């Protein structure tokens, strides 16, 4: 597709970068990508980027790496590294003083790239989790120099029906950080809210809506099915970008490997891979 309509693709891509990616919250982890980015209720290590509140349920120090390529173009690569560790004692699988996470990420190629360092904190009490995150962003465009900004984000998760129905919300860049005076260019402010329905331990259905101030609302949905304990299958969709996603996840002891592929109606294939290692022999 992209090969066949080069002009169309370039036009779409430039539009795409300037809006959808444009230092927004992005997606972290191939699990979230496979679920059509409906990730606001997840609580794995990548919650550091998807919804910091989800960090609160981590019970062991974890490190993970993530690589993403969009539409088979090397200029649209993302790589990220995240670490998270519980503070204080872990009782009944919950860190008493919350969990802290750190993430470094780079998107783009030589002509245009974004780097960020983010620090997040999530705390869980009872059936409710809250979280916050601060991002240091840097945008660089070759020949035009670079800009920096600080974005603050807040998130929350609540179990409406214990273990069955989870609600999550995340507000990225609530301070509406400014990148340039020209045309009031700002880091996108994005509000995500979603519900996860988990009828059994094997099945998870997520629906989520995402709104950026200057964009149309996006509706996302994903389903995860744990065929056996070691293998999960996932599928999802995003209506705004008309993407259909799918993927699988392997769990072997402390190791977690996830792969996702997304198909965009006009731009084709994106691929996501993440590998996580949990430094605790005891798996819940």
């Amino acid at each position, binding site marked *: 597709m992209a090969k066949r309509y080069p002009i169309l693709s370039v036009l779409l891509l430039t539009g795409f970068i300037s809006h959808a990616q444009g230092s927004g919250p992005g997606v972290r982890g191939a699990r979230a990508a496979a679920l059509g980015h409906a990730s606001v209720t997840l609580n794995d290590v990548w919650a550091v980027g998807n919804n910091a509140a989800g960090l609160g349920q981590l019970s062991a120090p974890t490190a993970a790496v993530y690589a993403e390529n969009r539409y088979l173009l090397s200029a649209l690569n993302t790589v990220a590294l995240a670490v998270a560790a519980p503070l204080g004692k872990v009782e009944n699988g919950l860190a008493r003083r919350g969990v802290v996470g750190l993430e470094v990420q780079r998107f783009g190629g030589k002509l245009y790239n974004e780097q960020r360092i983010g620090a997040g904190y999530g705390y869980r009490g009872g059936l409710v989790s809250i979280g916050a995150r601060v991002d240091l962003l840097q945008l660089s465009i070759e020949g035009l120099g670079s800009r920096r900004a600080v974005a603050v984000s807040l998130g929350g998760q609540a179990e409406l029906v214990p273990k069955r129905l989870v609600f999550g919300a995340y507000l990225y860049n609530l301070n509406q950080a400014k990148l340039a005076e020209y045309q009031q260019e700002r880091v996108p402010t994005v509000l995500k809210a979603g519900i996860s*329905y988990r*009828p*059994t331990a*094997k*099945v998870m*259905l997520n629906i989520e809506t995402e709104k950026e101030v200057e964009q149309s609302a996006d509706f996302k*949905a994903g*389903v995860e*099915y744990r065929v056996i304990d070691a293998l999960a299958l996932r*599928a999802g*969709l995003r*209506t705004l970008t*008309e993407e*259909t996603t799918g993927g699988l996840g392997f769990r072997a002891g402390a190791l977690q490997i996830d792969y996702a592929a997304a*198909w965009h*109606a*006009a731009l084709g294939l994106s691929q996501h891979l993440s590998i996580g290692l949990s430094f605790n022999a005891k798996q819940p």
Partner: protein
Amino acid sequence: MLRVPLNDSAAYGSTTHEAKASRYPQKRRFKAILTAVLLAAGTAQAQEYVRPTPDLDRLTQELFAEIQSDQVPSEDLYETLLQYYQTPISLNTATREDLRGLLLLSENQISQLLTYRQQRGPLLSLYELQAVPGFDLRTIYRAAPFVTVQTAGGTNGLRGPLWQRVFKEDNNALFLRYERVLQTRTGYTAAPLDSLGRGPTRYLGSPDKLLLRYRVSHAKDFSLGVTAEKDAGEQLTWNPNGRQYGADFLSAHFVVQERGKLKTLAVGDYQLQFGQGLLLSSGLQVGKGAETITTLRRSSIGVRPYSSILESTFFRGAAATVEVAPTVRATAFVSRKRVDANVQLAADSLAEFDEFSSGFLLTGFHRTPSERANRQTLRETVAGGNLSYTSRSGHLAAGLTAVDTHFDKAIQRRPELYNQYEFRGTHNLALGAHYTYVRGNVLVFGETARSSSGGWGTVNGLLASLAPTVDVSALVRHYTRNFHTLYGNALSENTRNINESGLYLGLKVRPVARWEVSAYYDQFWFPWLKYDVGAPSRGHDWLTRVTYAPTKTSLLYAQLRTRQKAYNPSSGQPIPQPEPTTRHSVLLYYDANPTPTLGLRTRVQGSRYRATDASPWQRGYVLAQDASVAVGRRLRLTARYALFDTDSYDTRQYVFEQDVLYAFSVPALSGQGTRVYGIAEISCTRQLTLWLRLAETHYRHQTTVGSGLEEIQGPRRTEFKAQARYRF
């Protein structure tokens, strides 16, 4: 009434319990007792649960999504479905494939039922379904009208010779239907002639629509039927030269089934459905609707008798299915009939074809001289077959299909760019393979075919029950722009399986009792041009329906749907740039029976439409209230009053209406006004039932209704319909 009076004294059922319990393994004790109690209740009340009269209207609304266009003759599709549902499936002898064909049971439920049957022998009563794991009450109520536990009185041979069985069969009916629009339409007025005696076109026949149908059938034994139909405006003449013998459309069939190795033999008009319907599909397809799981897969139904009145979707000749081995069945068919097409002579002596047709005409109308000239001008000869293997467990099924078509005149569509890859010539051979495999809670199925043009099509899907309350489905399809399947109708966004790729995801969740949420999302791409779409294009379509059944007899649902497709903008540009058109629609529906004799239905539907992202929204709205009352035992009255208000024809509303039995009307309402109808169903004697229906659309701010030959002077259009059914 499927009520289980658990306080019913067990004395009734004690013997039953003893007799049945001995067949159970010990650990099933509790289930056995429950079943026994249920059975006891059953025997106490009646030997057999009385099958409720199917609420076909409700069923079709539950299965079908809203109608999208006038191009699909939906009425006939419904009729096919309704007729199919008229023959109840025996739960004790039905194969896995038969049960799938019901479209109401999930694969999981089917497996559970088969296991149950295997472990405990045949079901003794429909009440026993409650004891089958995975069968919730909603499913039982939905399926009850279409299933039975009675085996058909032993083998066919024991009931006397065939002619006697046909003669004595109770399941027979003669239908007579009459329809007419009461106002005078332009096509039926006298034409003003000029000095040369020429005048504008007029219809040749009377404005009456007549239908006569007789059918006698016995499930898994035989079916014999005759149909004759005359549409409004068609002539009723005897003209052997013009191949007309009375009515404009005549059809007949005779089918025998289950005669040893010969499973089915059909002579006359029949339909075929194999695999996913990519090559052979018989009108039993629902497409993308609110039922997002069970209807996604098509069933290999094989040879079916045809007694509907759609004049283009059947084969005429003979077909037979033979059991080659216990697991292998072979079907061969041959068909030769004439179809409507406009035949032209080539203007250029160097042209490829001297005489050719630019395409088939599927409406079946032969009312004007030009329509009559196109009547049955093309002879179509089709031959082919299918070879199917089904494993003994029924878990794996696979097969091969071949369809070879030959026309006596070449098909050559109009030389437009979007017709570049359409079928041309006189001959098409299509070969395909299909498969179905069930393992645990997952069912995969698919079909792939190639036509002689070199084009190919494939459709592959998956249904999975992830949890007792969650079902998901996925379907991938790809039909190349030069893939020609002339009788196929696999799932697609286009009306035909050509020039399309798509990806469908479906979901159905029952989060709490009485609630059900179903949704699908479908993306599609059209790699080549289409009519009114001057470039490769794409689109998507999604639907969500939330259903709540507070009681056994009431149902509420809300449905949202969005569809986005690209079309050429109306402004004439030298190079058309298709723009995405968006249509949102919403439907709220409430159906309740406050008392056994009274039924109430409310329907609110609306849509908004935008031709391009920059153009303003246009809206359409309909509110309809129905009431149905049973007066005594012999009379049932049904009425509707509906108000509609749409901004334009693009936001016209298609509203399901109740009709006489087997008829279905889904009129398109546009403009402003009211739509009213009343139906009386009178059971005169045990043999004779009458239906009378009067419907009227009254438009505001209009002095005429319709256009062209269908134009009516005045703001009203009134239709009258009467039908009689006589059982011998």
